[in-house]
C-alpha cells in the first residue's frame, strides 16, 4: 500500500519534470541560475565604466554605508528613504541615460529591489544592476 503510494507519487513527480525542463530551456536567456537578476539586466564594472557620462550610478546601500564611501558621483537611493530620495534622483536623471544600481556585494538584494522599483514605479527602462556590487568596484579600483 505504502509502496504503491510512493510509486504513484514518484511517477507524477517525474511527469511534471518534463514540461518544467522544457520551460527552463525556453526561458534560459531570461533567468539567471546564479543570481536573481537576468543576465541582460546585469552589467560588469568595466562595461559600466565604459559608458562614462551616459551612466548614472545609484547606491542602494543604507545611508551610513553610502556616507562612509561610494562610487564617485553616485546618488543614494535606498528603500529606507525611497519616497524622499526618488524625486532627488529623478531631478538628475534625463532620457537616454543608463542607470547602474549597486549594493554591497554579489549576495545583497538591495540593488535588485531598487532596480525593480525604478523599472516598475518610475517606468525607467535602461536600469542595470552592477555585478558584484560595491566589492567588485573596490577590487577594480585598486
Amino acid at each position, binding site marked *: 500500500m505504502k509502496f504503491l503510494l510512493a510509486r*504513484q507519487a514518484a511517477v507524477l513527480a517525474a*511527469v511534471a519534470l518534463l514540461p518544467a525542463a522544457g*520551460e527552463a530551456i525556453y*526561458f534560459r536567456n531570461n533567468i539567471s541560475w546564479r*543570481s*536573481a537578476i537576468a543576465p541582460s539586466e546585469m552589467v560588469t564594472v568595466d562595461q559600466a565604466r565604459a559608458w562614462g557620462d551616459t551612466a548614472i550610478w545609484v547606491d542602494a546601500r543604507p545611508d551610513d554605508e553610502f556616507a562612509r564611501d561610494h562610487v564617485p558621483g553616485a546618488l543614494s537611493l535606498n528603500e529606507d528613504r525611497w519616497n524622499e530620495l526618488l524625486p532627488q534622483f529623478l531631478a538628475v536623471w534625463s532620457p537616454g541615460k543608463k542607470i547602474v544600481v549597486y549594493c554591497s556585494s554579489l549576495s545583497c538584494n538591495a540593488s535588485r529591489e531598487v532596480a525593480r522599483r525604478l523599472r516598475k514605479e518610475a517606468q525607467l527602462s535602461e536600469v542595470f544592476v552592477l555585478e558584484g556590487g560595491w566589492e567588485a568596484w573596490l577590487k577594480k579600483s585598486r
Partner: protein
Amino acid sequence: MNSTPNAQRPTLNVELATAAPASNIKNRTANIIWRILDFVLAGIFIFAGLSKILDLDHLMADLQNLQFANALTDLRNLSLANPVEFASGVDNFKLLPWPMSVALAFYLPWLEIACALGLVFRFLYRGALALLITLIVVFTLAITAAKLRGLDITCGCFGHVSQNWSFPSHLATNLAILAALLALGISNRLRKPL
C-alpha cells in the same frame, strides 16, 4: 428446530432486497459529492499552476469587470509569464538558495497541474492526493515561518490574485484546502467505485 431458520430466510431476503437499492443510492450520492470535491480541488490547483505559468493578469481583470468579450480576446492572446517573478516570490521566503528557487519556480506549477489532473481522471489518484497534501503542508509551514520571522512577503501562490492576501486569509485558505484533501484521502479508502 429446523423450522425457525427456514422461516426466517424469506424475511431476510425481502429486507435485503429493499435495503440494497437504498444503500446503492446512498453510495452513489456520496460518490458524486466526493467527485465534485475532486473537481473543485483540481480546479484550484490547476488555476494555481496556470497563474504561475501564464500571464493571466489581463484575463483576470476583464473577468472581474465582467468584460467577457475582452476576456475572450485575452484568452486568445495568452502569453507565458516570466518565471523570474515566481522565483523571486520563492526566494523572498529566505529558506532556499536562489538556484533552488529557480528550479521550484519551473517545477512546482507543473507538479500542481499534474496532481490536479490525477484527481480529475482518477489516475495515480492516491499519489496525487499524497503529493498535494505534502505541498499544501509545506506552503502553510513556509508562510507561517515567514510571518514568525517578520518577513513581509507577497506570496505568488495563486499568481497576482493572492498578492494582497493577508496572512490570516492565506492561512485559512490553505487549511481549508488541506482539510478537503484529507477528507478526500479518508473517503477514498472507504468508498466503493461508481
